């Protein structure tokens, strides 16, 4: 039976805090952790499948034009080659997150260098890879096209535009004003597991093991791409080796493997090479951002301007939502927020962890540091003076707001010195040492979700949903919610995720996974509790379940008497989404050292304090924050996609040349989880957490670089070359 709950009101009455099991929020290790570290958790490409052929994508070596002919004769004569799949249904780009339909197909029209255009299938991977390289493709090249945003006129994204009051006048009248322009470079998700799919077709049903984040959307995208009904498709993603947005929508290997398996009547596996993942999967757009901040003599903002230029391919709706948190983080009655999109021929731009705030917040928070310096106000204090009591543009109340607590508790735990902030004051040998801080903000999302919970007659429970765990801890937090609600130890609960034969979950993305699927599981568990209470002739609110027993009396096994109770929870966020402004908040504090001679920057220590509603698992929540802070370090210091200025092809296409932080770059990190309940965020009072940890962190490092050595830098990443160029003599 399905129980539907649409949440129109804040969930002020919540069972999770009054249950007896005491497992919710606890720092449980991941239940699938042992399988992962012992190599027994199968990822998409690792399933053993008899007679499986191997496919390798052929990619375009022009930027814009048309494939005239694919010469397959040579390849077909090579040993082991089974087929070259050329099909107008092959997709030419990955699908954007939540697209729910096929992305652009017709791969013979080339829109970016590295676009997949065909698939070579062979008996072995090595044969296919070699054959894919030997295929000669004849193109009609359209010649020079725009590959950098500066080459084209950008389109204003009018839905994003806010113009209120008179910002120019506010800037002119301000006691203190900042007008600064920042740039950020493109980023890659750089997930450890490359994109991979293995497809099997039995004449009726297509079964695809794939590495995907949102099966509920992906199944429709795949069905639309190949032209069969979603009911004839089964997608399986039990384990995903990192997604970070790059696996939100289906990408080329999923469709290619599926079409090949259907055409050849045998299983086909397609694994993208690291280079193909880099040059064919979503990039985060580079940005240029102008920040204008006007403040009165107390440092209170009277004007707020944030303009951003981002890019994407023609035909893509996604524009990196740089201004997302700028709309509500700080007040200022004179506002001007404008987002512009330039159409250029680099690969598809889409979601990379924390789309929007990941790059918007580091620019905004670096500008706030300049304002603090100009106004002579401690940077923590400046932010405390600029916390709005309601959403400054929409006028909505905040569902909850922990920025002040994060700033205060973070500053205290870090040992923030509220005294003078003069730069270049502390030197140890070759190293300038300094501190910096920044606010964190990331909009909260919550989505419709379904999950089936079955309390089995033997006193165990099974949870089934097509929700994924992309390394975030979904398996574990789902078990904790069920355990808490039904009085079961987590080891008595089987969480079965990542299979579209199960009820539709929300998918993992936009940090909404845990709050959304958790709410659906909660709804199902409440329904089961009602049934149990009815059997006991008591009220659900009086039902005390722990360690497999009801109260001090019967065991659940006795109570169930041989039958299972299965309930599907269907959670839908209703008016709470319209009636409240919801966001996670936080604060970052960093101490860095900058080498006087070489401009190298190393992070000494870093602390993040975050408030994001209920903490479902203190360990996996903390891990998400640690990962986010690590991404902040990468964004601040090293990560940048580098494109050839002539044809727009990506040059740094592997993990040796695209520099994510290594262990040595990441010092001891400190995370403070500021526990709160946000009843309007979701039914279980939890908010998103996966992305907040990187939304502003890079600015705390930028501000610390300035404090250390006096180099005010406006371009991320802050490489030795940029530090030296900006460092005073």
């Amino acid at each position, binding site marked *: 039976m399905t129980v539907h709950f649409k949440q129109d009101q804040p969930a002020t009455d919540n069972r999770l805090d009054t249950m007896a099991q005491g497992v919710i929020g606890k720092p449980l290790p991941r239940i699938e952790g042992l399988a992962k570290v012992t190599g027994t958790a199968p990822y998409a490409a690792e399933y053993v499948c008899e007679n499986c052929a191997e496919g390798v994508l052929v990619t375009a*070596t022009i930027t814009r034009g048309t494939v005239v002919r694919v010469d397959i004769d040579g390849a077909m004569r090579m*040993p082991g080659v089974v087929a070259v799949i050329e099909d107008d249904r092959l997709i030419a780009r990955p699908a954007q997150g939540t697209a729910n339909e096929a992305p652009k197909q017709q791969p013979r029209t080339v829109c970016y260098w590295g676009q997949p255009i065909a698939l070579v299938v062979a008996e072995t991977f*090595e044969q296919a*890879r*070699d054959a894919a*390289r030997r295929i000669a493709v004849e193109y009609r090249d359209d010649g020079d096209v725009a590959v950098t945003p500066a080459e084209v006129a950008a389109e204003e994204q009018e839905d994003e535009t806010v113009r209120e009051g008179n910002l120019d006048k506010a800037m002119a009248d301000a006691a203190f004003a900042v007008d600064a322009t920042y740039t950020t470079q493109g980023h890659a998700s750089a997930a450890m597991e490359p994109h991979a799919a293995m497809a099997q077709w039995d004449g009726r049903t297509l079964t695809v093991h794939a590495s995907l984040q949102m099966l509920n959307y992906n199944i429709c995208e795949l069905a639309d791409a190949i032209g069969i009904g979603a009911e004839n498709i089964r997608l399986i993603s039990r384990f995903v080796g990192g997604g970070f947005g790059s696996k939100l929508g289906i990408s080329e290997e999923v469709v290619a493997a599926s079409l090949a398996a259907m055409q050849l009547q045998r299983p086909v596996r397609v694994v993208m090479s690291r*280079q193909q993942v880099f040059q064919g999967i979503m990039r985060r757009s580079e940005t240029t951002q102008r920040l204008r901040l006007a403040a009165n003599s107390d440092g209170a903002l009277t004007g707020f301007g944030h303009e951003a230029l981002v890019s994407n391919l023609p035909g893509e709706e996604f524009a990196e939502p740089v201004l997302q948190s700028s709309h509500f983080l700080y007040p200022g009655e004179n506002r001007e927020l404008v987002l512009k999109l330039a159409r250029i021929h680099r690969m598809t731009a889409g979601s990379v962890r924390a789309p929007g705030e990941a790059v918007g917040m580091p620019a905004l928070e670096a500008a706030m540091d300049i304002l603090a310096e100009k106004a002579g106000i401690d940077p923590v204090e400046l932010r405390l003076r600029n916390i709005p009591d309601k959403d400054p543009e929409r006028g909505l109340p905040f569902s909850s707001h922990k920025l002040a607590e994060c700033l205060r508790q973070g500053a205290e735990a870090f040992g923030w010195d509220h005294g003078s902030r003069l730069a270049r004051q502390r030197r140890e*040998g*070759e190293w300038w040492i300094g501190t910096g801080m920044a606010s964190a903000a990331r909009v909260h999302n919550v989505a419709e979700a379904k999950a089936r919970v079955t309390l089995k007659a033997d006193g165990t429970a099974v949870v089934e949903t097509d929700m994924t765990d992309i390394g975030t801890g979904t398996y574990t937090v789902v078990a904790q919610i069920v355990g808490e609600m039904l009085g079961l130890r987590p080891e008595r609960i089987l969480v079965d995720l990542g299979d579209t034969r199960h009820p539709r979950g929300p998918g993992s993305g936009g940090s909404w996974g845990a709050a959304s699927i958790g709410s659906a599981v909660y709804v199902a568990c409440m329904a089961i509790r009602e049934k149990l209470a009815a059997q006991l002739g008591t009220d659900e609110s009086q039902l005390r379940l722990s360690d497999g027993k009801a109260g001090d009396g019967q065991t659940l096994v006795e109570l169930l008497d041989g039958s299972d109770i299965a309930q599907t929870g269907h959670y839908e966020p209703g008016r709470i989404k319209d009636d409240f402004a919801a966001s996670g908040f936080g604060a970052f504090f960093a101490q860095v050292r900058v*080498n006087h*001679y*070489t*401009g*190298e920057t*190393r992070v000494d220590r870093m602390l993040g304090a975050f408030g994001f509603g209920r903490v479902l698992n203190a360990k996996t929540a903390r891990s998400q924050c640690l990962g986010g802070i690590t991404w902040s370090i990468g964004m601040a*210091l*090293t990560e940048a996609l*580098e*494109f*050839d*200025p*002539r044809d727009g*092809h990506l*040059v*740094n*296409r592997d993990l*040796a*040349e695209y*520099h994510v*932080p*290594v*262990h*040595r*770059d990441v010092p001891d990190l400190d995370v403070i989880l500021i526990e709160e309940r946000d009843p309007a965020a979701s039914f279980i009072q939890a908010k998103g957490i996966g992305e907040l940890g990187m939304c502003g962190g890079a600015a705390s490092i930028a501000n610390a670089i300035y404090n250390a050595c006096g180099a005010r830098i406006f371009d991320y*990443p802050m*490489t*030795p*070359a940029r530090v*030296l*160029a900006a460092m005073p003599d």
Partner: protein
Amino acid sequence: MRAFDYRRAHSPEDAARLTQAPEAMLIAGGTNLLDLMKLQVETPELLADIGRIGFAEIIDTDDGGLSIGALATNTAVAIHPRVRRDYPVLARAILAGATQQLRNRATTGGNLCQRTRCFYFTDIDQPCNKREPGSGCGAIGGVNKLHAVLGASDHCIATYPGDMAVAMAALDARVIIGAADGQQRSVPVRDFHRLPGDTPWRDNVLDPGEVILAVELPAPLEGMQIYRKVRERSSYAFALVSIAAVIAVENGAITRAELAFGGLAHKPWHDPRISELLVGSAPSAELFDRAADLLLESAEGQGDNDFKIPLARRALHAVLAQVMEQAA
């Protein structure tokens, strides 16, 4: 990767014979070659595996130096007691490169032959005179922040990417090379790598059919040994600029100054004029500025790598600061 034949060589002469054939290559640790084969940057028809021919030993030489077998791994060299005691600049340089896993596989001879990291060299869809003579240089006018500011040519602006050889150049080590007929020759590390000129496909002076047997370090040099590697990421990153230095100061004057530079050129850069300038003078900022003037006299940026020119100067000053601190 293309299909290839595989043979195991049983001796250096055997290996040398096998690689006389065109399209034959030696493989030792494979940490560079296998990656390049997967990308089809290298497409040998025959791989001659020299992993079992011996030559992995590190032994004292008669003149008090050290002979490092070509197949000694980076890890074995870096942790060798005599290397640590007498040639710390070499240990530090090796440990500044790659990762522990790679160093466990990478060999001394293979590391000398490591190929450039130029983005256009490692992508066979791009022009590259080093990979495909006559196809042009994609890096000129492209993304070239890693590229050479010294000794480049119109045909190639790639850099030699390694660290180990930079330290060996400062130590004035020699490469011992064997041929199929059992003959040996020795070449200073400083002359082993070439400038690109109009034959950029030749990284070094090895001829077909020649095999590196060992690297011989001279007797230990008096003085401080310093290796500085400037990089954006603090590990697993190639040098923007690196400096290996052996510098001795007595009675306030420099008595030895052997410096070699990485990240600047198609080879570990060594300029004998720098030693001549420094020896006999008291270390000072002004003196090191003059050394930098000499070093960078002909330096030329390509756009993205312009920063390397001031960075090399500053890195030299950082070495000076270390010398002053240790001398004090």
